[in-house]
């Protein structure tokens, strides 16, 4: 059994993610895999992803990974990153794509008409670079990370959860948008911890030792999705 499985479904470069996890968990076995059996048996699952939502969903299904990802998201420490966060929701506006439906909510594009800052300057899309992440409350994955710490982002779409309880962090561009969600055993982020230097390494370090359920509320999700 491997300690940490990084799900490889053919969407982009996973080397940065696996290198960063190996860096914070030198004693653990970390594998990049598209084997459903390895993912099902792993102690923890990291679900990254880059590219477009329709391609992501197609590649997940082409590899027969849909069910094992959903099962992992309901049963073990699970970290979604970027596109791996977005496709956990019901639906993405990108290519009008039905997604995994693990979390209720939708994924929307930064609306062109809203992309102007307080001084009247045009804001670029993708939202690319280091932005402040505001924590909605304490969580084991925020341990040792300052409120408002900067993380590295690159994305054009953002999630809109139906249930506000799952929102663990938000950022501004220029309006507030959700950039971190948490349930009993899922933590998912829009930014890239693997590229976010010390703050990112702190978050990944917290994930590899996270024991969901220890001293936490059991489940803050709707009953339907709690295992």
């Amino acid at each position, binding site marked *: 059994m491997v300690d940490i499985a990084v799900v490889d479904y053919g969407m*982009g470069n996973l*080397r*940065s993610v696996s*290198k960063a996890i190996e*860096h914070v968990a030198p004693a653990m076995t970390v594998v990049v895999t598209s084997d459903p059996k390895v993912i099902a048996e792993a102690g923890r699952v990291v679900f990254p992803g880059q590219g*477009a939502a329709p391609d992501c969903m197609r590649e997940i299904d082409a590899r027969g990974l849909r069910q094992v990802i959903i099962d992992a998201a309901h049963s073990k420490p699970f970290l979604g990153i970027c596109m791996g966060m977005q496709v956990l929701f019901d639906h993405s506006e990108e290519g009008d794509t039905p997604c995994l439906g693990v979390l209720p909510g939708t994924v929307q594009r930064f609306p062109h008409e809203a992309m102007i800052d307080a001084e009247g300057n045009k804001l*670029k899309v993708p939202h690319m*670079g280091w*932005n402040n992440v505001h924590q909605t409350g304490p969580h084991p994955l925020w341990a040792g990370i300052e409120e408002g710490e900067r993380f590295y982002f690159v994305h054009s779409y953002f999630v809109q959860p139906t249930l506000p309880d799952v929102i663990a962090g938000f950022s501004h561009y220029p309006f507030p948008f959700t950039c971190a969600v948490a349930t009993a055993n899922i933590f998912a982020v829009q930014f890239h911890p693997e*590229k976010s230097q010390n703050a990112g390494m702190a978050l990944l370090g917290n994930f590899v030792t996270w024991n969901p359920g220890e001293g936490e509320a059991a489940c803050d999700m709707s009953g339907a999705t709690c295992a």
Partner: protein
Amino acid sequence: MLAKRIIPCLDVTDGRVVKGVNFVELKDAGDPVEIARRYNEAGADELTFLDITATSDNRDLILHIIEAVASEVFIPLTVGGGVRAVADVQRLLNAGADKVGINTSAVLNPQLVKDAADRYGSQCIVVAIDSKRVGDHWEVFTHGGRTATGLDAVEWAKKMASLGAGELLLTSMDRDGTKSGFDLELTRAISDAVDIPIIASGGVGNLQHLVDGIREGHADAVLAASIFHFGEYGVDEAKRYMKQHGIEVRL
């Protein structure tokens, strides 16, 4: 609030960092892994490596350098130089690059930009544009600045954005290595013409030039090489200066 980025650039040839003036007269500046480590500690927001190795014999050296840097520096790494095919993009990403810069090949084969963006996502495709003022407009040059293309730089930038580039690295060849500041007019013309982020490059000689690139040039990020390599200014010092001048930076 989103921070403006400072990106030190490492021109690498035969495994060493070098710096030239107007694309020639190279001067040795040190070991790339050591320099990358230093810039990371000083708070660089990203690092860019341009492989300017002339001979194909030493092309693989850049892969080893990127592998070494990526295993200990956890900020975005862009690598450009000699990218001719989707397979080259794959090779650099596998070595640990997060973004790949495409320059000459984008002009020879614009479809490469679309193919690479479709395959790996726009977020990792940076189109590098080397441009020089010609009369009342700016023209795109390739092959390290030696070959005129007849392409208008602003129109070219729009085309690259529409083909899927996630970002543009814009170098003024008139200013590169001169320490007289960015070509602000060029930077602003292109930044205002496209929706994707622009990295301004070419000509930084002091910290005020970085501020001007953001304020006057409307750049989203500023790239510089020699002012950092030869110890004139630290990356951290540059960021503090920008913050004092009202620019949002990551400190």
